[in-house]
């Protein structure tokens, strides 16, 4: 069963984790995200609107999700990061590799 908030928007899988991704729930996020990718979509947007905190365990599962999407011929990008999450994404270099966008529309456009 998929507990992770998600929807399909203009052909992109939009994942909307709530509150935190940390060592306590990173595995569940990964399992759900990978199961959703197995259903066909290859472009993934992490909608961080409701996300307050992401730990290194959280970064890890975003990376594995990105790798899976890329291997399927798609990609992953990040949208609507809050200040705290933005800081972690910048320190980890994720902003440069995956891109950060202020809206889902901009993220959709970036994934092409």
């Amino acid at each position, binding site marked *: 069963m998929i507990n992770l908030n998600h929807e399909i928007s203009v052909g992109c899988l939009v994942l909307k984790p709530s*509150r935190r991704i940390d*060592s306590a729930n990173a595995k569940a996020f990964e399992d759900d995200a990978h199961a959703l990718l197995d259903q066909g979509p290859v472009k993934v947007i992490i909608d961080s609107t409701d996300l*307050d*905190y992401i*730990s*290194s*365990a959280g*970064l*890890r599962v975003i*990376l594995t999700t990105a790798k899976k999407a890329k291997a399927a011929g798609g990609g992953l990008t990040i949208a609507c990061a809050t200040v*705290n999450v933005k*800081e972690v994404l*910048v*320190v*980890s*270099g*994720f*902003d*440069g*590799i995956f891109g950060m966008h202020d809206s889902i529309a901009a993220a959709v456009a970036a994934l092409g």
Partner: protein
Amino acid sequence: MKASPASSTPKAKKISKNLARVAALEAELSDLRAEFDDLELLYQVTTEHGEAVENQLAAANIELLQTQMRLSEELTEATNYIFSILPPPRDGGPRTRWILEPSTELGGDSFGYHEIDADHIAFYLLDVCGHGVGAALLSVTAINVLRSAALPMTDFRDPGAVLSALNEAFPMEKQNNMYFTIWYGVHQRSSRQLRYASAGHPPSILCKRDGEVQTLSTPGLAIGMMPDIVYRTKFGEIMEGDRLHLVSDGTYEVETAPGEMMAFADLVEKLRVTKEPELVLEWVRGLNGPGALPDDFSLLTLEF
């Protein structure tokens, strides 16, 4: 007189009926006895089996305890090894002080510093994702590679080149899907120049003698996450009296209240006013509340 069968009299009929009842009761009794015998036998067998199981369990328990003791001894041994490869504090040029406190018995943080040549000293702190023996093994391997300058064709005075070479040497797919973040700096004494590069790692904090505070980092993914990444070197200056702090994310990523995380800026401010690493650890512990810190705490302070 014609003899008549006993049954024919009412008394005889009653006796015969009673006899039949006694026989039926006897048969029932015998059945019950047999059932009782069966149950008693079953009880015996079960008890014996239970005792055997108990004995087996006790033996397994002892074995488990022994294994646990052996594992715990081996973990202690591994922890001792990790601490043994950490460099002894320096008294000067620069003076160093450090704290490494793993959140579990074995963590993924480690660090080092060494003279590259008479004019250059290197200092670095790395954090392997996750905890436990696997993370510790990669951590120790990477530190040993840096300490022994074991990367082909790499100028260890050029931090960007060092990180790019590490990224080629340690792809996560070949390291049991583990990767690590690192901050690597080199100080040239003659020119006072600081060169540094970081890979997905929190900035180092430079507290200048005049009170100014700088946070030093370069953009870049953790080592091993993606191939073919070029890490760039940045430059700065370190003067006598400056203090440089290398940290890992576990040093400040603690929950100060439900849903409230300590910010990197809080750590920067604390380091500005506190010189002793022990006091910083005590302060972070106080913010975290009772129990172990959620991640490894490591802090390396260099005083120039």
